[in-house]
């Protein structure tokens, strides 16, 4: 029976959380990205969370080979990918088994029944078929013979191999979801036209399957209602959807143009940071020099060379890579060169959880070097503000002549969000400490009185030839010095120089409350989760909870101490075993800090946080 769309009661929702899950080869990342982009074009606020295995092609149908993409769309502000699902699209038994826990009771599952064969059920360790027993009693299950219907949709195209047919079934699922949420298929069809420019047959195949899914959903009797999520209210401007890693790369592009310097990236591929290299290497037209080095050490070393030669130099990595870069980073601190090190954090120690998120490299960033070697440490907190903090990292490095470590994490690096595009013109100025030819009484260690940044004389500048290195230097001349007092002076100067960055960073502000019963403290990539949970608490009547979320870690904002005394209790929430909390304990003795930690390679959930906060307030 055909049901006219106009006859269906459309359910208006503020936000919806959808997760697409399937085998690694099922194209779930592409499906999720397409849904995200289409929703952003529609005007929704969005937040995404791709979650995929570290194996490139894990054995088909296995529990550990499941790849998923979660998207949260809203007509109101959305700050996390959401924890509980409104809709789960499961392409095989293994993906159903590993993701069902997240679906809200009574909500919808779409499954490809063709994939629920004996072999796949065994691989997913199901003793009986969950579509036939009582496993899914609490949910609304939409059973679709997706593989067969895809084959049927393509029957008029001759000469298609089985693989091409089964590989396009994800578009059938996407078509169905588009219809359910009142989206159009146009954006995705345009995408096919671009992506498969050179293989027109695939444009045809994917378009046909997408439309077939859309039409199938429309004619399906048992989708009882359709959902609509209206556009969200956001600040006016031009927007685009951006991934955290792309935003990071673009922040550096903007900083290079703004500072008038050329951008040099020395890097070695490592998950989940590699996309920054992928992005920057594309932009040779802007004069970007992206150098894929032989290892992590050569990545940072080449960047140090480029910094000495006058470029805006950066290196990008993840946890284990930062460990390898430690010695060279100490050299950059000793030589007082501008350098940005990006660490897209992942689960550790060692290889750990390469594709999962964690905040466990904070101590490494702060202390992971020999000697007294302070670095500026800052952290981005959302996919789109990776742009702002990459820009800021470059600005601080150049203006203060010392390395900056920018911490992001797998969660915000791979997540995407709407970004109000900032033109280079509206960004703040970036100065640098270069000295011109023929400067009088010159020494490389003459410092800016305010920032203590030393002079930056680059090779090619007449009359300013000089040598620097890893040995301790005389505080005036810059020549090698082993003098006892001098080493103490220089150690204190390097520390003071980092501390004075406080004068150039904003004070921290609390959200939701400026004083009260509980202050929730977080840093970096957990902003979305913490903001959303505290906001929710506020909405349900807990008005005395504030949130203080830190982007500047070393140095901390000047007013940090004051702010911490305004609340009765403080809880520091981190995706590690308690690092920032211990740093705060060390800096603010006499203040009691409680902590909430999660170390599962996953972001915080909303209800999980709310439970914690409620218990603390009692």
């Amino acid at each position, binding site marked *: 029976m055909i049901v006219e769309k106009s006859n269906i009661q459309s359910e208006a929702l503020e936000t919806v959380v959808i997760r697409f899950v399937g085998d690694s080869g099922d194209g779930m990342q592409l499906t999720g990205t397409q849904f995200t982009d289409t929703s952003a*074009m529609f*005007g929704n606020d969005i937040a995404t969370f791709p979650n995929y295995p570290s194996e490139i092609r894990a054995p088909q149908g296995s529990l550990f080979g499941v790849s998923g993409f979660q998207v949260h769309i809203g007509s109101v502000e959305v700050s996390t990918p959401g924890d509980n699902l409104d809709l789960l699209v499961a392409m095989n038994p293994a993906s159903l088994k590993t993701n069902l826990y997240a679906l809200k009771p009574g909500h919808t599952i779409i499954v490809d029944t063709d994939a629920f064969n004996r072999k796949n059920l065994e691989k997913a360790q199901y003793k009986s078929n969950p579509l036939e027993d009582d496993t899914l009693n609490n949910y609304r299950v939409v059973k679709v013979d997706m593989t067969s219907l895809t084959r049927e949709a393509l029957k008029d195209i001759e000469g298609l191999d089985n693989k091409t047919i089964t590989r396009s079934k994800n578009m059938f699922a996407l078509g169905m979801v588009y219809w359910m949420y009142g989206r159009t298929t146009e*954006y995705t069809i345009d995408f096919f036209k671009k992506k498969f420019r050179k293989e027109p047959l695939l444009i045809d195949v994917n378009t046909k399957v997408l439309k077939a899914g859309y039409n199938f959903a429309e004619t399906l009797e048992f989708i009882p209602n359709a959902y609509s999520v209206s556009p969200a209210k*956001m600040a*006016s*401007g*031009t*927007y*685009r*959807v951006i991934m955290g890693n792309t935003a990071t790369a*673009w922040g550096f*592009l*903007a900083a290079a*143009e703004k500072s008038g310097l050329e951008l*040099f990236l*020395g890097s070695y591929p490592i998950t989940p940071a590699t996309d920054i290299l992928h992005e920057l290497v594309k*932009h*040779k*037209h*802007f*004069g970007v*020099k992206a*150098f894929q*080095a*032989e*290892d992590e*050490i*050569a990545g940072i*070393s*080449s960047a*140090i*060379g*480029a910094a*000495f*030669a*006058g*470029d805006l*130099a950066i290196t990008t990595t993840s946890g284990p890579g930062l460990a390898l870069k430690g010695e*060279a980073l100490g*050299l950059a601190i000793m*030589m007082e060169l501008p350098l940005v090190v990006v660490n897209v954090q992942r689960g550790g120690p060692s290889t750990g959880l390469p594709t999962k998120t964690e905040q466990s490299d904070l101590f490494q960033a702060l202390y992971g070097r020999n000697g007294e070697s302070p670095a500026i440490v800052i952290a981005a907190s959302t996919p789109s503000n990776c742009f702002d903090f990459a820009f800021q990292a470059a600005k601080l490095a150049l203006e203060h002549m010392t390395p900056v470590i920018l911490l992001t994490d797998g969660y915000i690096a791979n997540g995407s969000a709407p970004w109000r*595009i900032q*033109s*280079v*013109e509206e960004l703040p100025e970036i100065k640098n400490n270069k000295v011109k030819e023929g400067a009088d009484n010159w020494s490389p260690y003459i410092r800016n009185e305010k920032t203590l940044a030393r002079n930056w004389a*680059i*090779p*090619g*500048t*007449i*009359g*300013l*030839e000089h*040598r*620097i*290195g*890893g*040995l301790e230097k005389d505080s005036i001349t810059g*020549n*090698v010095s082993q003098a006892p007092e001098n080493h103490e002076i220089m150690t204190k100067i390097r520390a003071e120089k980092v501390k004075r960055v406080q004068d150039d960073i904003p004070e921290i502000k609390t959200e939701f409350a400026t004083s009260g019963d509980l202050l929730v403290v977080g840093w970096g990539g957990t902003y979305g989760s913490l903001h959303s949970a505290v906001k929710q608490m506020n909405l349900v009547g807990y008005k005395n909870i504030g949130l203080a979320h830190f982007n500047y870690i070393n140095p901390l904002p000047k007013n940090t101490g004051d702010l911490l005394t305004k609340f009765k209790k403080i809880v520091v929430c981190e995706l590690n075993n308690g690092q920032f909390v211990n740093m705060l304990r060390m800096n603010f003795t006499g203040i009691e800090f409680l902590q909430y930690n999660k170390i599962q390679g996953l972001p915080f959930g909303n209800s999980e946080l709310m439970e914690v906060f409620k218990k603390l307030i009692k």
Partner: protein
Amino acid sequence: METAVENKYTYKDFESDQEVRWCPGCDDYVILRSMQKALPEMGVKKEDVVFVSGIGCSSRFPYYIDTYGMHTIHGRAPAIASGVKLANPSLSVWVATGDGDAMAIGGNHFIHVLRRNIDLNIILFNNEIYGLTKGQFSPTSMVGQKTKSSPYGNTQPPFNPGELALGAGARFYGRISGNSPKDISQMLIDAHHFKGTSLIEVLQNCVIFNDGCYSNVTNKDVKEDKLIFLEHGKPMIFGKNRDKGLVLSNLKLEVVTIGENGITEDNILIHDAKEKDPTMHQMLVRLEYPLATGIIRSYNDLTLEEREAEVTKQVKANSKFKKIDDLFFSGETYKVE
């Protein structure tokens, strides 16, 4: 750019104000002075010269030359120098390194810089020992050599630096005795003019921990008979009486005497350093008698900077982006009122 300099420098222009602190009698002094004498002959401005070093006795080198310089960390000088050169290809970039710095801790960077052929110059001070840490065996120490870390004799077979370099794709490799300052200077000048990574291995004596390590081939009284100094386009002749030469026999290099067994100068191999195929160069670097010195290989190839510049030119010509904003506002964007 490296343009000719009108007011010619002397070696004094390249002496820094720092006191040189190597052990008395060290060959490092010879190399330093050879460098200071070679620099005015290169036609390069001193502000365009950068010396980069790692760690070790040899790595103090940049402090003593009045140009730009960086004394960095153990083994990483080739990677740091690569960054300097890629950031500003108009600079003349030099790496001073030792056998431990280049081939032990820095082995990875050493082979990759040679593979890429970035236009920089590496001076390898090979004294077959660790000097700065006071006398442990290095990757070029001989088997059986007694050192502080091999009191019963070294059991680790050594690298032959030339062989390693050619295996890694070196386009320019020269070997020179540490007691021949004029030849060192000339080789440094040749390395400077060569486009691509040039590697100069200096057979350098360590008076304290490995004294006389090359004396059986480099001492004045034996040098002419034990070493062959190769020059491109010239026959491979050596010996006090210039009567010894190299011929190819059964795929091996063989020493013959001119005037014996009907051998004339016409039979002697002609050295072709510019040949792309490194087979003969490999045979020469492996030769023990006579030990081959001079520029063994000098094959002209595109540098990494040239390859990069070519790609960049094409990308620029085809790009629709002139400034960053063009990129930011490109593709799928939408307006919120």
